[in-house]
């Protein structure tokens, strides 16, 4: 199959610090690919470049053949590339249902031609009903129907991740970038989530995910891309990655305890974009 997303020799520097150096890989249509690497390897930075939150210092990202150079995040979403966020994945003051309604922004846009005028004149009735039905269906899919009327900010961490996924799905993407989707979930929640990811893929949505939960990554991925210190060090199917000496070295080099600590502390870690 053809590449849906091409990361073409992308480099990112913050001042003198190299966050990503010459990153180059493709994701093919319909794949589930994981982007892994020790903490600070540049995974989230890579996501931010792909979704327009950061401008790369060099190289470019192409989505379905279109260069994303210079495109604002909302414009990239409109091309069909959606993402979730590591820490702040919800609109905290709104209900779960309203969260998804906000997420359906684009779909709503297709339903009405002059949204502001329609709103002022009160002409949005039919479209609104359609949107609500769709929001309810989405929540049902991710399994949050029962939480519909709760404030999103008050949900458990794992459930907030699900809201984030629902929001991303609401944009009707062709490809989904998931940033540590199962962090904060317990084992059974993770299992449910893996099933959800597979369902998403079955609907024809390509998935690229960043994750620390290795068993989950190994289970769900078709292919894995490994980053260390901003460089690609390995790429291939799970079995090959599991035994790749460079990968083992990277993880061991950092020390497994440090890895654990980094993992559990990631809630307070600073992301470049949201810092």
């Amino acid at each position, binding site marked *: 199959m053809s590449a849906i997303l091409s990361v073409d020799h992308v480099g990112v520097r913050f001042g003198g610090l190299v966050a990503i150096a010459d990153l180059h890989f493709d994701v093919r249509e319909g794949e589930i690919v994981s982007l892994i690497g020790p903490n600070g390897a540049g995974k989230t930075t890579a996501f931010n470049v792909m*979704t327009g*939150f950061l401008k790369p210092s060099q190289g470019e990202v192409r989505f379905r053949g279109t260069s994303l150079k210079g495109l*604002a*995040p*909302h*414009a990239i*979403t*409109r091309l069909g590339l*959606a*993402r*979730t*966020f590591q820490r*702040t*994945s*919800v*609109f*905290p*003051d*709104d*209900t779960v*249902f*309203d969260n998804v*309604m*906000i*997420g*359906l*922004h*684009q779909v*709503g*846009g297709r339903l*009405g031609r002059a*949204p*502001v005028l*329609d*709103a*002022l004149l*009160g002409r*949005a009735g039919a*479209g*609104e*009903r359609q*949107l*609500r*039905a769709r*929001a*309810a269906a989405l929540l049902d899919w991710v399994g949050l*129907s029962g939480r*519909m*009327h709760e404030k999103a900010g008050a949900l458990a961490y794992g459930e907030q991740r699900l809201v*984030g996924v629902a*929001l*991303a799905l*609401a*944009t009707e993407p062709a490809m989904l970038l998931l940033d540590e989707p199962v962090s904060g979930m317990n084992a059974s929640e993770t299992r449910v989530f893996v099933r959800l990811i597979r369902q998403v893929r079955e609907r024809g949505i390509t998935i690229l995910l960043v994750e620390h939960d290795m068993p989950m990554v190994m289970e769900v991925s078709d292919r894995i891309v490994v980053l260390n210190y901003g460089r690609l060090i390995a790429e291939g199917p799970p079995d090959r990655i599991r035994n790749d000496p460079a990968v083992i070295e990277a993880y061991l080099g950092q020390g497994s305890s440090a890895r654990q600590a980094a993992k559990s502390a990631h809630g307070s870690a600073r992301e470049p*974009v*949201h810092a």
Partner: protein
Amino acid sequence: MTRLLPLALLAGLVALPLALGANPYLLNALIVTGILTIGAMSLNLLLGFTGQLSLGHIAFFGIGAYVSALTSLGFDVELGFGLRAVHEPWPPVVGFLLATVAAGACGYLIGRLSFRVRGAYFVIVTISFAEVVRLVALNWVELTQGPLALTNIPAFTLGLPGLGFWTLKSKLQNYYLVLAVGTLCYLLIARLVHSRFGRAMRGLKENESLALSVGINATRTLTVAAVISAAMAGAAGSLYAHYLRIIDPDVFLFATTVTMVIMVVAGGKGTLMGPVVGGLIFGLLPVALRPVMAPEAQWIVYGLVLIVILFVLPRGIVPGMAARLGRRPARSAPVLEASPAVPQ
């Protein structure tokens, strides 16, 4: 319940003059309060619903006032390079429409220019804009009469050509005019907030990155909000000009913006009823304080109340009271309405 409160308040306001008799002093206070409340409602659209603190809001109000006044008074101005702008007086209704359009256009400009910056920069840009406009009103004497004020502004007229015009000279007529415009603005804002556009504003306010990632165009959304907000402020300014029938550059004073901000924050930013409740309280407070306090002491009270509210009811009176009564703030109302409509 949350729908009943605005209705009850509206009914009360409609009946109020009957209860007051036509006490001109109180009516005057109510009219000015009403106009400022419309200003506060429009400010709330930006401050409350998009989370952008505009401290130059009075500029739009003042521009509306001046445009409307000049449209209905006419002017004859030398523009330099041998150009002259001469304008014959038009009816105040036209002034009102032009005021709305002109203020909205300024809102567009300011939105395009200043939404490139956020936070402190945005605040200071908006203050600067208001100050520049004030200085222009002060110094372009040929057009605005400068500090002399534009006087003899005609009172509002309603009607259609051919059917005759009805001049709103009395306080009672102006009171109902302001109430009608205020209600209209309230309804428009309510519609807007409960629409897709309103959700986009809220999304940007609560989590801008996430909002962008679901395809919301931040600059466009904020600019449109600024246009609508500015246009409403301009409409309020027009009402102000034709009611007081005099406008001077002090209409652009920072203190008036601060008054509106206090109205919004105290009432509850990001709620529909907040600015109305805050507007009524802080519009009528001076009337209550006037006999017992010097103006500077009144301002001390204002400042104290602002700080105390931020301490005690950081989200404002309306959400605070709603929480205390175990009810949800008015903004969540659509959810309650919407849920039964969702097919399960």
